């Protein structure tokens, strides 16, 4: 079983987000980026599948700042191969990314592609189902509990209120992973450094994205805040509110 996991970096949302001078996108130059947490879950699930039922895990990422760190970290966590896609824009919209990835998956070959269910900047849709459509494979969003068997995969698709459905799919397929069966593993810096000296990242030239439907950005702005919260100064103020509400 060959599993491909595309990895994307997203801004760390705990930090302040700066808008670029264009007023249309974030200022990626100054932002602190980190691996999309849902991609981390997709990678973890791929590694879990490999460890429980065998297989080969390939991490892929579009060339850009810190991409080597992301890919070496994936190798340190247990991925078998790391592939850097060169000549594409890591901040491109998801339709373009999906086209580029469809080209890469075609060249690398895969039985299963695991993508994070969503990414913080998903303006034009989600990568997983777009990629599935471009590959003409079945694609399902918001999944967990993946169990491969033979050329098939059973999985859960999550709805609202804790309701789920179980499906079975003939591979190859693309899954938008919500949560891995275990907390994504951590690769210590020392391990990443060691991998950096021994392992190699392969390069793959991006296929032309071709025509993708484009919705142009008009503007980006922080949401207009309503009245917002009344800011309190201390824990005692919280107690006061709880008293007013009759809780204590």
């Amino acid at each position, binding site marked *: 079983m060959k599993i491909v996991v595309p990895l994307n970096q997203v801004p760390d949302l705990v930090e302040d987000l700066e808008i670029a001078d264009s007023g249309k996108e974030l200022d990626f130059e100054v932002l602190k980026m980190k691996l999309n947490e849902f991609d981390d879950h997709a990678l973890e699930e791929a590694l879990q599948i490999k460890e429980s039922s065998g297989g080969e895990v390939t991490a892929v990422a579009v060339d850009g700042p810190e991409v080597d760190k992301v890919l070496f970290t994936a190798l340190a966590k247990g991925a078998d191969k790391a592939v850097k896609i060169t000549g594409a824009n890591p901040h491109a919209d998801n339709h373009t990314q999906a086209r580029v990835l469809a080209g890469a998956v075609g060249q690398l070959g895969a039985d299963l592609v695991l993508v994070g269910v969503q990414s913080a900047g*998903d303006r034009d*849709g989600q990568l997983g189902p777009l990629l599935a459509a471009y590959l003409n494979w079945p694609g399902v969003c918001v999944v967990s509990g993946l169990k491969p068997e033979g050329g098939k995969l059973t999985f859960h698709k999550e709805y609202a209120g*804790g309701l789920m459905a179980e499906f079975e799919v003939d591979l190859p397929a693309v899954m938008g992973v919500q949560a891995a069966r275990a907390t994504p593993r951590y690769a210590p810096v020392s391990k990443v450094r060691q991998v950096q000296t021994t392992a190699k990242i392969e390069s793959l030239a991006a296929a032309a994205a071709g025509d993708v439907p484009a919705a142009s950005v008009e503007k980006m702005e922080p949401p207009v805040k309503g009245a917002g919260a009344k800011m309190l100064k201390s824990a005692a103020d919280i107690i006061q509110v709880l008293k007013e509400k009759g809780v204590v």
Partner: protein
Amino acid sequence: MGDVYVVAEHLNGELAEMTFEMLVHARGLAGGVGGSVTAVLIGGTDAMAAKLGAADKVIRVAAEADYNPDTYAAGLKAVVDAKKPQVVMAGNTSQGMDLANALSARNNMPMAAACLKVSAAGGNVHAVSQLYGGKMNVTSNLGSGPCVVTVAAGAVSADGGRKDGAPASEDGGKAPAATKLRFKKLIQPEKGDVDITTQDVLVAVGRGIGKKEDIEVAVELADKLKAAVAASRPIIDAGWMPKSRQVGKSGLKVKPKVYLALGISGAPEHLEGMKNSATIIAVNTDKNAPIFDVAHYGLVGDLFDVVEEMMDEL
């Protein structure tokens, strides 16, 4: 003249709340594009159609009652290919994400996701997407041709979209059965030891709690307040608390008298589950955390210090 097609969503035999919210969005938009509102009901029942009175028309597509991404996507595509609506609207939900993205890619229709607002001006459709965990709104121009939007939950009240009485119905044919993807069964949510949807007071913990052992801090506070402990999704995914305690989009919707959020950022998926609580009090170290926009009271600070001081005072 553009029509707006709403992909009516149903779950567990019932129309989803999102369906009615979409009908509200669609009504406003249809005025702008000069067309009408059509609900596309795939695999639905007569009882569901009878609740879609806020639409001008319903197109019924025959399919298995239980959602199958491939079958439903093919059924929707056939309707869109035949009718060529200007805007196809789906929920930014588990089902809607599958269907909208597949349609956008296959039919080369531009798409905007997680929209708070969709409007038309000068013949073009514009949509405001809620991105970056609710910290940025981005407006897209989807042009004057066919396009796809997914709507974020809770941007409008569903009430305006609830109107009984089936609109005129049209046969949308039978969705081609999926060949590679098979629905097996629905798995109903597990019942927990505590029903967080019926509590007056909830102490909710998020990733700011840091580690499993420290949930005890919240449990102690909850005991003092005769409250139950709830949590954001990452706490459940980490296996620190059972799924029955999860608040949000894929968890439970709660409406307690008081919701005390400790170390929860306020991602849209979390807010979806608790923003109608009577009183929301949030404690967070990040003064810009989106939770402070929905909270009634906020305190910028370390949750451990705050809880400790509260325990001393109580």
